[in-house]
């Protein structure tokens, strides 16, 4: 997949940083404003896909290679499972118990701040990481696939 013209390359190299920052904002403030882990993860993946469409596939693969995307994907899933298991051990014995909220933040005055709601921001970050890595992986694999001419000539 080739890149595009000079104008597109210049503008997208400035804009992709803004998209990435916006994606991080939507993920982290998911418990106060609309958004959350899923929408933020898809926006983060969109910034990398913009990089791939504007500069070509090889440049994007140097930036975040196939192996690293798989590792980030697994890390997000394992982080989500680890948060759930911590609720089992440290909380009341239930699987997804919000132990941070019930132990440390249960008093008044914590309602609309950034540090509130216990394990919900941590779970949002884990899900955002996982969705971003998954969607970037599948788009990279779809663009790398070239039809094999040698198999068709043998038939």
């Amino acid at each position, binding site marked *: 997949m080739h890149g595009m013209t000079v104008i597109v390359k210049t503008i997208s190299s400035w804009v992709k940083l803004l998209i990435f920052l916006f994606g991080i904002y939507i993920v982290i403030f998911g418990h106060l*404003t*609309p958004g*959350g882990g*899923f929408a933020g993860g*898809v926006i983060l993946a969109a910034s990398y896909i913009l990089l791939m469409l504007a500069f070509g596939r090889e440049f994007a693969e140097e930036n975040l290679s196939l192996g690293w995307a798989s590792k980030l994907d697994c890390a997000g899933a394992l982080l989500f499972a680890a948060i759930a298991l911590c609720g089992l051990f440290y909380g009341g014995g239930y699987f997804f118990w919000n132990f941070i909220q019930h132990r440390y933040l249960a008093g*008044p*005055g914590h*309602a*609309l701040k950034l540090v509130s709601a216990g394990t919900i921001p941590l779970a949002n970050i884990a899900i955002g990481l996982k*969705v971003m890595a*998954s*969607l970037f992986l*599948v788009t990279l*694999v*779809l663009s790398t*696939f070239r*039809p*094999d001419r040698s198999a*068709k000539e043998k038939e």
Partner: protein
Amino acid sequence: MAYALCFLLFMIGLYCAAVKKNMVKIVIGIMIMEYAVNLFLIMLGYRSGGQAPIVGRGDIAGAGGKVLDSFINTSVDPLPQALVLTTIVISLGSLALMISICIRTYEKYGTFDITEIRRLKG
């Protein structure tokens, strides 16, 4: 009346997925069906003149975290929205899987037509 239009959208998608012969058209029909189902679920939870289920600064009574009655009586239903949120992301994953099957079939048989694929074996 709004439910009837939503059901009409679902029938359009079902007609496209059942009758057409092009593989990509079948995928488009499945996507239209998914949009119609998501729309129907969110319409079930709508309250006329309601507000979004997000607590603002003017909806908290006191410091204990209790919400005002005005918020409880005018908020829309949050449960269908929670279910539809995961459904939309799952539909993206299944779209990627369907398109990868289409690409692989085109590379092997040279066409998107499902009646041709049935006749040529290998």
